[in-house]
């Protein structure tokens, strides 16, 4: 499963860089100089990574201590507590729901709802603590942006927010 994810992510990177590289052909010569040179190198390196993911023996050649210390090892070994499929799925869904709610009903409503959902149902905290965190975050953001800085936060497309 891990290997498949590695291949998938490397393939995704190669595709994204490839698409950007192809897109840069539509620019004029001077404008496409930097995107093409940076994108070209990134594309080749992405291909190396992809090859390394598919053929582990090829990868061994590139496994070097780039910074003269074991700097990369900590990144490789990074395993967050929510790396389990279920936890990751919930966290990603929550984040997408948050963005979607901001878009639909604006910051003033989306923030308390999403903060409360996360703290109460995902974090399994008490009702009192969940309400307190929700209220504090809302007061902080609303007070700082709307009241103190007089900055109008997005109201949501349902409440007349203009894109």
């Amino acid at each position, binding site marked *: 499963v891990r290997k498949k994810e590695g291949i998938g*992510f490397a393939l995704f990177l190669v595709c994204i860089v490839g698409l950007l590289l192809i897109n840069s052909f539509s620019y004029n010569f001077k404008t496409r100089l930097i995107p093409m040179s940076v994108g070209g190198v990134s594309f080749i390196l992405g291909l190396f990574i992809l090859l390394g993911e598919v053929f582990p023996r090829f990868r061994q050649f590139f496994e070097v201590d780039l910074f*003269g210390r074991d700097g990369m090892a900590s990144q490789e070994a*990074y395993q967050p507590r929510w790396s389990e499929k279920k936890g990751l799925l919930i966290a990603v869904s929550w984040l997408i729901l948050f963005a979607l709610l901001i878009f639909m009903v604006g910051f003033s409503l989306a923030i308390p709802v999403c903060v409360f959902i996360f*703290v109460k149902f995902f974090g399994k905290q008490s009702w009192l603590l969940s309400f307190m965190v929700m209220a504090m975050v809302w007061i902080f953001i609303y007070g700082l942006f709307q009241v103190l800085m007089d900055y109008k936060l997005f109201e949501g497309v349902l409440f007349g927010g203009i894109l």
Partner: protein
Amino acid sequence: VPGPLLIKENLDIVWAIIWGLVFSNLLASTIGLLAAKLLVRVSFLEVSIIIPVIAAISLTGAFANRGNIIDVLMAVIFGLFGYFMRRNGFPVITLVIGFVLGKLAEVSFFQSIMVSRGDYFVFFKRPLPLTLFLLLIGLLFLPFIRKKRRESL
């Protein structure tokens, strides 16, 4: 009134900006020092409380930067992208450095081209950029050379 005669014609504004910067730095340092003991307690909070707070502030900040709701979507996409990068062993810092230095590098590149009157080989003709370029190439291959040497020992 920004312009080449700003200091000559509006010295009071310049001084106001300078003193404003001085006082804001002093104020920020004082608050930072006084609140340090309280702020350090944040690290003892549970992850389930920190995550929604940071997410809410980050997404609000993403919107407030340009007042564009699409930036919120971009923040979510890049947040997920960063997570998967870390999960698959890619250092996130290199991407951030690329984003920060990318524009600067592009502007400087075209400035150099303009100064050299359209000569694209200007980076290899002067001793300093040529030395830096060769050092960069050398640094790229250094880990491989070191690995080979370590293996041969």
